[in-house]
Each structure stands twice: as C-alpha cells, then as structure tokens.
C-alpha cells in the first residue's frame, strides 16, 4: 500500500508530533491520530496475520467494525490484548504489537497453514475432534489459536462503577444523536448523551457536511458545548453502550484516560443507566464486497478511505480504485478526489447511480465503469492491480470481459447495515428491507426509538426530519415538548438504489481455488458458508457455529449480513427468511476490569473482623476465613507445628482455662405470643417444652428433611427466645425464618431480629471458668446450683449489660459471655488479664474442632452432607416422639429416610496403631480395594492431645447397629483399620460438664 499523509486537512494537529512503537519499530504520528491512521501514514501495510491461515492483513475499517487490525497495546501489567487499532487513540510512547503472527509479521511460519488450506474447511475442528485422532493436530492448532495475551501481573489500574437514571438516554453522537439530545435537553428532560468515539459527528467525520451553512465540526462543537452548559444534561464521549438489558437498563463503559493511568484516576467507569426512553442513534456499518482475494492488504471499506482523508489527513493510496453497488461510495470518491488523490475508476455494479450523483462524478472527472465489479486483486508485495469484470443480467461476472486496472488500493462498498445490535438486544424484532438491502428495526419491545442510519435512513436530510419527528413523540409521552428547529444540511449521495451483490466466486471465473472472504477475523470464506449449507446446516445459528462466521472479537460487524446474503443466494430465498443470529452483549469487547470495578483483591469477598481483631494479631493468631469471618485458626508459636500449637491450646483449656472469641455465633431474637409455636415448627426437636431460663440444643432441617443447621436456643421469657445458629448460617437462617413467617404461617404473631453483630461473645472454657468469672464485678451468681449447665442468665458485668449461656462445645465447663459488640474487645482483654493466675490460653477454631471431635459432637456440614437426616445422627427417637409437624417432617417419613442401612454417624477407634485417620477415607468391605462399593467415609479426624490417640467420626452404612465391628478404611492406596464405637471418646458420661 502506498498510504501517505496529506499536506492539509483532517482533525489532527500537525504541530504536535507523537512518537510510538509498532512491533518494536519507532514511528510517529500526530495529536488526533488513531493508531490505525498513524500506521497508514507511516506506510505500514501489513498489520497482522489472519487467525486460521495466517494470511497477511491490512486495515479494513476506520472504526470499531475493524476486523483485521487487532493489537496488543502497552507492556507488562498494563498490557491490553485485542484492541482495535482503529479505536486506540495515539498517545506519546504508545507500544503496539501485532497479534497472531509468529515469529514475526514479515516471516510467519504458520502461514504454511495457507498452503494446506484445503484441509481446513468449515467444520474442520468438529470433524477433527472425531477422526482419526485429534491429538495429531492438537499442537499445531494450539499454537495457531488465540489472539492477544492477557497480562500475567495484577492490573494496576482502578475501575469504577456508578448507577444513573435519566429520562432520555441518547446513544450515538452523530448529527442525528446530537440533534435528538438538543431537542430533549430543551424540553427540560434529564438527558444522558453518549458517544463511543473521542470525536463527535459520526458520518460527518467521514463525509464533510455543512449544517446551517457552517462546517459540521464547528456545529458539533458548539452543540456539545451548549449541552455541557445545561444542568439537565450529562455528555460523555469515549463511552460505549455495550448492552441493552431488561426494563431499559443500558450498560455503558466510559474510558477516562486514553491508555495509561496515573494511579488515582479510574481508567474506566462502568455505568448502569436506567432510562425512561432510549434513543438509538448508533449509525450503520458499511459492508465490504465479497470477491476472490478481497482480504489482501490494500482492500478497504470505501467509507474508511474517506474517513482517513477527512478526519486524519491520510490518503490510503496514490491510485485508488473504488467498487460499489450503491451511491454512498460516490460520496467517498468525492472526498478522495477533492483531497487530490488519484481515483482511477469507480466500478459500479449497477447501470448508474442517481442522476445528480453521476453528474457530480462526471463534473469531477471521475471515470465510471458501469455494470461491473472487481473480481480479484494482484501484487506480491502490495497491490499492483485489480481485475474488473462485467456483470451479466444474472449478476454473474463475465469471464471474457475481465480486464486489469493498475491501482495500489481498492475501496469497496457492498451496502450498509444499520447498527441494530442494541435494538435487537432490547428484544426488538428486525425485518429485511428490500429497498435498502438491510436489516432494520421493525417492532420495539422496550421503550426505545431508533433514528438516523440506525433506523435504516441513510440520507442525512431525511434522517434529521425523521429523528425530530420521533423525538417529538417521545417527549409528548413524557409530557414534555420542544420546538424542532429548521436545520439545513448539505445534500449527500445517500444509499441510492442499491443492487444486491452478495458475493463473486472464483468458480464463476474458472478459478475454484481463489477464495472470497466473508469474515476476515475468523477466516471464513463464502465457500465455507456454502459447504455448511451443502452439509445441511440450514439455520443461520448453525451455519454461524459450524463455520465460526461472526464469532471473532469483532462479532461479525462487517461480515454477518454478507454471510446471510451468501446463504440467501444459495438457498434461493430472501435474506429476511434466513434471518439474523442473536445479538448478544457486549456490543464490542470490554475489559474485565470494568466489570470487576473495585471488587478486586481483599474487596472481592471482604472478611468480617472479630471484635477482638486487633488483639488477635498481637497474640500471633493465624487468621483464616471461616464462613466469611476472619478468625484465628490457632496461635502460632515459634518453631512449633500447627499440631503442637493446637495441642498446647487444647491441653491448657482442658486442664485450666481457655478463651475463644465466639462472636460470629448466629443470634436471632424471636418474640411474640406465637414464638414457641413458631420455633416448634422450625426445629426437629420440641421447643415448646423449653422452660424459661433454660437452653436446649436444636436441630434444624430443610423441607427436604436434610439437616441444615444446629445450635443452642435459650428461652428468655415465655414469648421470647434467643436462637443460636452456626456462624456461617446466621443471616441465611434469619432470612429463612422470615420467609416462613411471611409466606407460609402468615397468621403467627411473631417478630424476629438478627442480633448476631449486636452481641460480642467470649467463650470462657475449662475447669477454672467459674473461678475466673467470679473475679468480675457482676450481678451473676455462678454457683453450680444457681447457674447449672444448659441455663441462660441476664444481668450486668462490670456495669455492662450481659447475657450468659452455660453451654459447651468442648466438653468442659464453659460459659458464653455476651456483651454489646463495642465492649467485646475490652471483655476479651479483661478476661486475659484476670485469667493470668489460671495460665489462661486463647485458643482458635482448630482447637475448638479438636475438642468437639474428642467429645464426639457433630459439626453440620462436616459430619453431615446433603443426604443426612436426623435418624442418621442419633435423633431418631427424638423426632419419633414429636407428634407436631415441623420443617422437613414429612420428608423424613419417606421410605428412603426410614430404610435400614443408611449411612449413620459413629465414632471410629483406630486399631492398627497408626496416626489419625484420613478425612474422606472410604469404608470398604473386608479386603476390598477400589473399584468397590463405598460403605461410608471418615468425616472428622484428629490425633487427640487429651487422649494421646487418634479419634474420628464417620458416616458408615448401618453404623449404629454395628458398634464393635472392625472395618477397613481405604484412602489413596493405603489401608487402615478401625473399630466402630459410639461417638464421644472423651468424657462420654459428661461428668466434666456438670460441675
């Protein structure tokens, strides 16, 4: 290609030079350039290799419809893959790399694929996966697949999110969009106007336009400035509407800095906008003509050729041939011609354009070749010539008429496709319009309107009239109004009378090997589409997936409709009958950072701190995530293993005194005259008979009869309970109680309140617990008879409201002392100070778990799974005795719940002299190894520091009836032996609790 920078013109600042790198080569452009325009100005013709065949590719378009110029931008952590050079604003020091070329652009080893092209037809991958062996091809395919590389370091940039509401969201800052926003703003409506580009003006950036006798650029600038002034308008450029969702929610991503962040400004901001009405002024995409070798560098869209001249002052070639089937390419030809570019010929598939357009072309001295089209391009390094053929009455090229025309670039226009992506995502239905050969909006589902080229109206004057009319209707529906202004715009060629010309094939010219590209990015040719049809893939959705047409990162912006056109010719039907594939968000690729926003790192899943969090760190706690809480696993002692640390904590607690911050324990207050009746329906065991001041263990099922949670309930008064839940389930159970009350038992007079984080809980544990608490200045009588095991008391401790439950998960004398959350830290400290004389030891979750396994207490979720019913954990008699209904009651009466041989919770006593049993190890029949039936598994297991031997719990088939049996446990190739015992290796009689 022989692109070059023009002396004048374009919205670039030639006084501000910008240096950048492309594939390591130093180049320079100007302020206002995109990477694509700067590359063209630097005569870079090959900018990448194609995905499948690694054919050299050049720039195709000038906007986000670009299919070829896919770039890796930046380096290191800031590197961004798969950006389109046509969308990347040039900034000083920008580093760009081509993707998909190995080892280099000039010398691409994988281009050998092209030699074997006949082996890679449509469906190649599907066929290859089946026959003869995918692994033969795998290394080559893996090497060839994939575009850019994601950075391997964390993203240093900040991303933001915000929500907004507005009356009217205008998407697209072309002339129609600006006009719509201006009218809406005048009416007093709250308006949000967004434009994906940095520049305003849309098609006016491509084809110079006069609005009210002034240059479109200055009209846009003054309109935008005027809108900026209005308090009811928000104006955002560099902002893409990427998705249209239910109930008029539109997702936007705003780019706040062109490329690199300063560490303070967010790089991008995601907006979730709920609009009363959405105005889609999204414009249209030009379609390339499909002909053999149309993917060669130097073949571009006609409008792109005009854009590079008008906006960037770049001519795409010195001798340009333009081929078209509609009038719009004439407008592009005029732009090039006026900039002094040699337009060697205008090849028109039709007999003629509109008379005034033809007249203007003739006046400018353009050579028009009618009833003809371009059928090939030639040249080994850069384009040298184009082959042009006449078309017969059946739209077939006449081989005999072929002639060669010297040129260094070819611009094509195969018609225009309205950008109906967002309209279609909103649920709107499309129709194929014969007159414009385009899919246009037919029927809306949500509150939106399409205007301008997005509505299939391609002539600016007509577009504006239509837009003003439709905005008027929208404003009326919002009880607003604005006076349309008389606006004169310069006359453009528009689309004219387009002629359908979907593809020209090599076969038609006796060159069957010559492929005509439909999808440039995914390397899909018209013959691939036809092959898919021959193999009976008829639905457009099937053809898409079989050929991968439109499935690349450009989402087929330039290729989908051409593919549909090729299908319609082959199927001898209307393109409307073929239909489009489903349009899905995002409209254009987005960064993942924009979706993540601030929810990265520690903010992804913030952990809740204990009230004593600061002290935990001082004490050397190893803090881990337990059900969303940051809790000590154990306290680290230098030079000691986790097991040694845990053992020390356990023994100190069992022998004297331990302290555990149990604040995350779920606490839900249940009040009201029907509180007892309600909780009796919630729990599997009887809660009505619980006496005031007493505590009771409660087992909660879900409606399927499966054990869901357990905890200690206290009855504070006749009509007032305090429900204890496991730490991880507190809010879920609070929600669940409300669901039952509001949706099922609506007549029960009960109120609930989740007070989990109102009360800090310090668990004082061990034989010296009573002696410790008696040292406090309190209203409590801790005497063994005054305050027995499983009792609840309220009072004051050091002048602070206090609730105490005498309950135990460790098997020792234990009190759960609750004070208002803000006093939790000082209570922890006070206990530590007063506990010094008893050699108090803080302990963590792992030590608590060790003690409860020694004691044989079940832990829901460890010793139960999604099949465990109360009968499986020794609750059979209790639920049998309860005649009332409760949640899950009917489910545990199912035959499966009542059958014998279910897995039941038992204790396991190691008999082989070995260490702790492996958790998850399977119980197998005598002498059996996998593959064999599993008779259950080990659910909890530790080496008991207290008993100096391994202790374990397990779910074993028929376990309750097999006490005393010896079993084998198989785990990862090792075999262990254990005896089934009743759970509770430590203090089975509970003597240590009742002291």
């Amino acid at each position, binding site marked *: 290609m022989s692109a070059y920078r023009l002396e004048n013109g374009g919205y670039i600042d030639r006084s501000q030079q910008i240096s950048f790198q492309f594939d390591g080569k130093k180049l320079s452009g100007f302020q206002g350039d995109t990477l694509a325009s700067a590359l063209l100005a630097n005569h870079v013709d090959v900018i990448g290799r194609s995905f499948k065949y690694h054919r050299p590719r050049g720039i195709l378009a000038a906007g986000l419809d670009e299919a070829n110029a896919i770039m890796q931008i930046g380096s290191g952590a800031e590197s961004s893959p798969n950006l389109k050079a046509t969308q990347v604003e040039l900034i000083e020091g920008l580093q760009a790399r081509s993707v998909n070329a190995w080892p280099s652009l000039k010398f691409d080893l994988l281009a050998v694929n092209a030699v074997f092209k006949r082996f890679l037809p449509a469906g190649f991958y599907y066929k290859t996966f089946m026959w003869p062996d995918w692994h033969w091809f795998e290394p080559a395919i893996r090497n060839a697949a994939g575009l850019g590389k994601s950075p391997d370091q964390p993203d240093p940039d900040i991303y933001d999110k915000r929500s907004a509401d507005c009356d009217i969201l205008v998407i697209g800052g072309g002339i129609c969009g600006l006009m719509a926003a201006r009218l809406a703003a005048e009416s007093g409506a709250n308006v949000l106007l967004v434009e994906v580009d940095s520049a305003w003006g849309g098609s006016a950036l491509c084809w110079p336009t006069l609005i009210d006798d002034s240059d479109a650029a200055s009209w846009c600038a003054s309109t935008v400035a005027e809108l900026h002034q209005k308090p009811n308008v928000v104006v955002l450029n560099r902002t893409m509407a990427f998705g249209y*969702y*239910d*109930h008029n929610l539109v997702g936007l991503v705003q780019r706040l800095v062109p490329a690199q962040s300063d560490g303070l400004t967010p790089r991008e901001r995601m907006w979730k906008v*709920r609009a009363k009405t959405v105005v889609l002024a999204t414009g249209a995409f030009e379609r390339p003509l499909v002909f053999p070798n149309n993917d060669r560098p130097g073949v571009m869209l006609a409008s792109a050729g005009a854009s590079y001249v008008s906006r960037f002052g770049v001519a795409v070639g010195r001798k340009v041939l333009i081929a078209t089937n509609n009038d719009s390419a004439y407008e592009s030809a005029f732009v090039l011609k006026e900039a002094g570019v040699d337009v060697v010929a205008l090849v028109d598939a039709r007999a003629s354009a509109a008379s005034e357009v033809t007249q203007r072309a003739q006046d400018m001295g353009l050579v028009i070749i009618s009833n003809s089209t371009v059928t090939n391009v030639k040249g080994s390094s850069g384009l040298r010539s184009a082959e042009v053929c006449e078309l017969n009455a059946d739209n077939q090229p006449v081989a005999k008429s072929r002639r060669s025309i010297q040129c260094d670039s070819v611009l094509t226009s195969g018609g225009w496709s309205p950008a109906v992506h967002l309209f279609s995502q909103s649920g709107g239905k499309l129709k194929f319009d014969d007159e414009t050969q385009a899919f246009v909006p037919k029927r809306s589902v949500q509150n939106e309107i399409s205007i301008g080229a997005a509505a299939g109206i391609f002539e600016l004057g007509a577009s504006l009239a239509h837009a003003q009319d439709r905005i008027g209707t929208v404003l009326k529906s919002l009880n607003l109004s604005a006076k349309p202004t008389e606006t004169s715009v310069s006359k453009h060629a528009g689309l004219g009378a387009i002629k359908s010309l979907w593809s020209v094939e090599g076969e038609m010219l006796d060159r069957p090997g010559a492929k005509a590209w439909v999808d440039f990015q995914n390397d899909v040719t018209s013959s691939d589409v036809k092959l898919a049809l021959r193999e009976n893939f008829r639905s457009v959705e099937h053809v898409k997936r079989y050929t991968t047409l439109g499935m690349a990162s450009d989402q087929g912006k330039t290729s989908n409709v051409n593919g549909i056109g090729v299908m319609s010719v082959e199927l001898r039907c209307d393109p409307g009958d073929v239909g489009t594939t489903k349009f899905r968000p995002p409209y254009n690729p987005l960064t993942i950072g924009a979706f993540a926003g601030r929810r990265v790192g520690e903010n992804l899943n913030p952990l809740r701190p204990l009230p004593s969090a600061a002290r935990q760190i001082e004490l050397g706690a190893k803090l881990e995530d337990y059900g969303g809480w940051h809790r000590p696993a154990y306290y680290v002692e230098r030079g000691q293993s986790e097991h040694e640390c845990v053992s020390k904590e356990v023994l100190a607690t069992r022998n004297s005194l331990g302290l555990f911050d149990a604040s995350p324990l779920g606490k839900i207050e249940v009040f009201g005259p029907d509180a007892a009746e309600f909780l009796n329906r919630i729990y599997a065991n009887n809660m009505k008979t619980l006496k005031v001041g007493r505590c009771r263990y409660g087992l909660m099922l879900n*409606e*399927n009869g499966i054990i869901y949670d357990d905890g200690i309930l206290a009855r504070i008064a006749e009509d007032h309970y305090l429900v204890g839940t496991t730490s991880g389930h507190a809010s879920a159970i609070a*929600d669940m109680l409300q669901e039952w009350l509001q*949706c099922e038992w609506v007549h029960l007079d009960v109120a609930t309140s989740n007070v989990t984080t109102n009360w800090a809980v310090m668990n004082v544990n061990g034989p010296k617990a009573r002696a410790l608490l008696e040292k406090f200045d309190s209203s409590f009588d801790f005497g063994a008879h005054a305050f027995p095991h499983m009792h609840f008391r309220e009072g004051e401790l050091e002048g602070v409201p206090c609730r105490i439950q005498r309950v135990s998960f460790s098997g020792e004398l234990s009190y759960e002392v609750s004070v208002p959350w803000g006093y939790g830290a000082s209570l922890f400290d006070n206990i530590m100070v007063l506990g010094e004389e008893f050699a108090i030891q803080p302990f963590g979750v792992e030590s608590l778990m060790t003690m409860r396994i020694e004691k044989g207490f079940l832990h829901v979720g460890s010793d139960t799974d999604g099949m465990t019913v109360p009968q499986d954990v020794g609750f059979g008699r209790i639920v049998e005795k309860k005649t009332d209904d409760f949640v899950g009651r*009917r*489910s545990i009466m199912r035959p499966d719940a009542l059958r014998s041989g279910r897995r039941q919770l038992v204790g396991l006593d190691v008999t082989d002299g070995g260490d702790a049993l492996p958790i998850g190890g399977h119980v197998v029949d005598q002498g059996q190894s996998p593959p064999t039936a599993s008779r259950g598994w080990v659910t909890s297991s530790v080496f008991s520091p207290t008993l100096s031997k391994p202790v374990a719990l397990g779910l074993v088939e028929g376990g309750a009836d097999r006490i005393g049996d010896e079993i084998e446990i198989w785990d990862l190739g090792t075999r262990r032996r254990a005896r089934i015992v009743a759970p509770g290796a430590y203090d089975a009689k509970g003597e240590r609790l009742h002291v």
Partner: protein
Amino acid sequence: MLNIKCPWCGERPEVEFRCGGESHIQRPGPHTEVSDEAWANYLFYRDNPKGVLFERWVHSGGCGEWFNVARNTVTHEILAVYQMTDPKPVLEDPKE
C-alpha cells in the same frame, strides 16, 4: 436487570431482591396424611410457563418484605405486584 416495584419501597433494581420461586404453592398437611406423591409435588414440581409466571420475591437488600410478582417469562415484563396474602390476579393473556 429487572426494575421491581417493591410495594413498600417503590422501584428498585433487581440486585436488591431475591427470587423465591413460584408462589401460591400450598404446603400440604397434616404430615401424617400426606401421600409421598403429594409431598413430592409440593417439594419439586413447578410450572415452567412460556408466559405469565406468578412468583414470590423478597426485598432482601431493602425492607426485607416478601411479595408476589406476576412476570412474563418471555419479555420479563412485570404485570402485577401484590401482597403475599392476596389472591392470584386475573391477567389478560398478553398476545404477541
């Protein structure tokens, strides 16, 4: 993302709510008289209409109240919002 009109708080985005599935499901009882089949129907069998679905939602990130919603499963249009204790409203079948 739906825009749901909580009867107590007004229009709020879907992320503030949680869907509790189909509404107007009768919990059978007493448990001693319910057949396995009736219980399975209650637990697992739900309508899956192409069209209007009556379902219950809770404003979990707001007032915490449960209410019923009639939603078109094709267009996601919300046709009615009503209290838990209200009967199913009679809605005209929305034709394409």
